[in-house]
C-alpha cells in the first residue's frame, strides 16, 4: 500500500472528472455544502442520515449499505473518490466505512473541499443522475473496528491514540470548539492513551503531511509500532482521519478505529478515566 493507492491530488481529480468507473462522492454531516456547490459529477452521502442506523446507535447493516450504494449508482468495482469539508473528517470516516464493508477501490481526495476552494477550482450545482447498480458488500471487517471492551483491554497494553484537541484530552473542553460545551459524558481520556491531535497529520490547507513528517510525528509521540493500535476521538470521524494515516499511508499492520469514541466511553459506568495533560497510569 502506498500513498498513490489511497490518495489522489486535486490535479488528478480535475483531470479525471467524468472518467469511466470513477465515482466522486462528497460526504458530510451537513450536506448543505454539497447543495450549494460540489465537484462536477459527484454524488452526496449524508453521514448522519445514510450511514447511521436511525434507531439504534450503530451503522447501517450490510443489506442497507448495499441498497444505499446501489441507489447512488456506485458499482462494486468502481473506484470511489471521497472528499468533503471539515478537513475530510467525514470523508475519511466514509473511507474507513467503505473498507469496513470491503470496497476494494477507494481513495481520498487530498485536502477535500478546502484545498479545492483555496485553489479556485470549479464547483457545480448540477446533480448527476447515475443509473442504479446492484452493489455487493462484504461482511464487516472487524479487524479495523474497535468496540468499548477492546479499548478497556488495550489500557496499558496496546497503543491508544486520542486524536482530539489537547483541551478535550485533558478534560478542559468536552467537544470540539465549534460546538456547545454542555455535554453528558465525563471529561478526560482513556488512561495511557497518547495525545496526538488529528491535525498534526494535516497541513493548513487540509492536505496530508509527507510520510517522513508523519513517521516523525507518531514516533516522537511515543507510538510503539510493534503493538496494535486503537484510535479514538469524540464520535469516530477525526479518528478515522488518523486511522487513514497510520493504516493506509504509513502501513501499520493492526490499526482499529473506535467509532463509539468519547461519547460512548465518557458515559460508561465504572471504566477508568484520566484527566489532565499526562496519559496517566493503567
Amino acid at each position: 500500500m502506498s500513498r498513490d493507492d489511497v490518495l489522489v491530488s486535486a490535479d488528478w481529480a480535475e483531470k479525471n472528472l467524468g472518467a469511466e468507473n470513477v465515482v466522486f462522492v462528497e460526504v458530510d454531516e451537513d450536506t448543505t455544502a454539497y447543495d450549494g456547490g460540489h465537484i462536477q459529477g459527484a454524488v452526496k452521502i449524508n453521514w448522519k442520515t445514510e450511514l447511521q442506523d436511525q434507531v439504534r446507535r450503530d451503522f447501517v447493516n450490510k443489506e442497507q449499505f448495499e441498497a444505499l450504494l446501489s441507489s447512488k449508482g456506485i458499482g462494486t468495482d468502481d473506484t470511489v473518490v471521497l472528499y468533503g469539508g471539515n478537513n475530510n473528517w467525514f470523508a475519511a470516516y466514509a473511507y474507513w466505512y467503505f473498507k469496513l464493508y470491503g470496497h476494494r477501490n477507494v481513495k481520498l481526495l487530498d485536502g477535500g473541499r478546502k484545498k479545492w476552494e483555496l485553489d479556485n477550482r470549479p464547483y457545480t450545482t448540477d446533480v448527476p443522475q447515475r443509473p442504479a447498480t446492484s452493489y455487493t458488500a462484504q461482511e464487516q471487517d472487524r479487524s479495523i473496528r474497535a468496540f468499548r471492551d477492546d479499548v478497556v483491554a488495550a489500557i496499558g497494553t496496546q497503543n491508544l491514540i486520542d486524536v482530539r484537541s489537547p483541551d478535550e484530552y485533558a478534560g478542559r473542553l468536552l467537544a470540539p470548539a465549534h460546538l456547545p460545551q454542555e455535554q453528558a459524558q465525563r471529561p478526560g481520556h482513556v488512561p495511557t492513551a497518547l495525545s496526538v491531535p488529528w491535525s498534526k497529520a494535516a497541513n493548513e490547507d487540509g492536505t496530508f503531511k509527507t510520510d517522513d513528517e508523519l513517521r516523525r510525528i507518531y514516533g516522537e509521540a511515543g507510538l510503539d509500532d510493534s503493538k496494535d493500535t486503537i484510535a479514538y476521538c469524540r464520535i469516530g470521524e477525526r479518528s478515522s482521519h488518523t486511522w487513514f494515516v497510520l493504516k493506509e499511508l504509513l502501513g501499520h499492520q493492526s490499526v482499529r478505529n473506535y467509532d463509539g469514541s468519547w461519547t460512548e466511553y465518557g458515559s460508561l459506568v465504572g471504566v477508568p478515566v484520566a484527566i489532565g495533560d499526562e496519559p496517566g497510569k493503567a
Partner: protein
Amino acid sequence: MTMSTVDGCGAPDQAADLPASVDIAKETVITGTVRAGDAPVGGAYVRLLDSTGEFTAEVVTSPAGQFRFFAAPGTWTLRALSREGNGDTTVAAAQGLNEVAVPVR
C-alpha cells in the same frame, strides 16, 4: 428525523442565532467576522488555535463572513484562510460573548 448538533461533529450554520439550548452564562463564545478591507469574506476557513498554537476547531464563514466558536476562558488565536488572503488575530476570551474581527490580506 433531526438530531441535535451535539450528536455530530460538523459545524452548525455560522449565521444562525445561538440555539436556545446554549447557556451563554456557561459557555465562552468567540464570534466575529472575517473581512478583506471593509468587505466581509464568506467561505473563509477560520481555525481556532490554543495558546500553544495547536488546532482546536475550524469553521467556514457564513456569506456575511461570520464565525462562532465555543471555547473556554483563555488566550486563543483565530487564523483565517481564504481566496482573498490570510490573517491571524489573538483574543483573550472570558466567559460569555467575545467579539473578534479577523482581517485578511
